[in-house]
């Protein structure tokens, strides 16, 4: 079941290394995480997830752009476009809470998804990787919470 040759594997590692959440991981660690990531491509206008859907994981943007359309008043003013390297749906990584916004692809967008159950098993089996990824997710969350609290033009957690 080796579908990726070494060259493609190296490309994937480089691509994932460029993503903020995985920047602290070594090559070996990225290869471990890569096993758990699911790559998806969304066409312009395609829905990634809808508000109220049960959330089961996060999406990390590799290329393209996604836009969130929340109903929540607090988020109406926010800059809700996400580009390469950014992650969305992180609130669902810790519990299967409903999505708080509908996310649509602004242009053709490639993402990798990390499923909650697989992330939990990663945290148990490989604490070193789990902690590094978790710290980066926590940084993103705190950054977004800070922007929201200070009323800055923010990117909220979804």
């Amino acid at each position: 079941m080796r579908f990726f040759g070494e060259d493609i594997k190296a490309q994937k590692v480089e691509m994932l290394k460029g993503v903020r959440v995985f920047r602290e991981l070594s090559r070996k660690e990225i290869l471990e995480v890569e096993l758990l990531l699911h790559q998806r491509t969304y066409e312009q206008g395609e829905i990634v997830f809808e508000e109220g859907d049960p959330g089961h994981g996060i999406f990390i943007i590799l290329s393209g752009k996604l836009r969130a359309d929340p109903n929540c008043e607090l988020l109406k003013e926010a800059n809700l476009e996400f580009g390469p390297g950014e992650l969305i749906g992180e609130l669902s990584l810790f519990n299967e809470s409903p999505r708080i916004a509908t996310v649509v692809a602004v242009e053709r967008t490639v993402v990798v998804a990390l499923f909650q159950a697989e992330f939990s098993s990663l945290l148990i089996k490989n604490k070193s990787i789990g902690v590094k990824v978790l710290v980066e997710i926590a940084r993103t969350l705190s950054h977004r919470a800070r922007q929201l609290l200070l009323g800055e033009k923010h990117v909220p957690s979804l």
Partner: protein
Amino acid sequence: MKTFPQPGVLTLLASIVITCLLLFLFQKMIWFVVPFLLALMLCYCLRPAVSFLMVRGMSHEAAASAVWLLLQITAVVALIAGAFWAMAEAGAWRGDFSHYVSGGQNLIVNSIALIEKKVPPLQEMNLSAQAEQWLGQSSDRFIEKNLLPLTLLALKWLPSILLVPYLAYFMLIDAGRLKKYLIKSVPNAFFERALLLFSRLDESLQSYFQGLLQLTLLDAFFLALGLAALGIHHAIWLGLVTAMLAWIPYIGSLFGAILVVIIAATDFPEKAGVAYACLALFAGVRILDDLVFLPLTIGRKLHFHPVLSVLMLFLGATVAGTTGLVLVLPLFGVVAVVSESVAQVINDPKLKARYKVSRQLAVVAVSKSLQ
């Protein structure tokens, strides 16, 4: 363990029908189904060891390879030791076999004679003498008739059994990649549902196989303990073999009980009480199984109503005989989870609409790229 939502009546009926159809198909390709299931079971049982090594810093591939290699070395050493032991004991085993068969015959004949004494009308029928004659003829012919077919059967199954460790290795190493590959073909609209489905399937199978192993070990321990207390030879082996026979619901336990009673009757020909004590031990362990061990292991992990479990066992036996009895519950568990997820998708108009829109958008994107 999460409690999954209960499926509707139609979904349940569909699950039952699909399970029966699959059992019918599996029966036709049993040469592959048996090693595949054994490999799957081995894989789930080895997973905790792989996780243990991963927690200590090994990569998934290295941990899986190390566990598999250790298993292979253990299996090869055990096989070589077993072969030497079998060669040394083969002569004695043949003698033991005849000895235990005649012990079993004596038990049956003596029991019938005892009943005849208590019920005079039966005495006139002379059942014990008839049984003695019939059993004597049957046992003489049994070895002659069945030794060669049994040897050929064992040789026929050898390639399939040899497949088990290799299948288990690739399941351990590549299960994640296979899952990714399968999910890749799922449309975006159903992507998260598909991930959830795989997670549930994985959870159900892991629960079932690990539960089955725990149940077998518990049964083996209590049976071995009881048999040793009664003074039966080879109590540990007998406990283990009879506990494994219990994988075949109802019939397996019956065979296990008969085996132990025959051995007890032969080892203690003058003490019929020991054989009856063995029967009582089996009944006791069975009750412990149903009331304590099963709910703690398999029963708690696969959320079937007891009536549904029994119904499925009967259906499994009707459709595919002994194979059906063994396979029906885990298969039904898998089919129920898949059916429930498919039913949820079919009944979700939002998901269907998203799928349609996604397809249209893909067509538009392809058309644009061609212009």
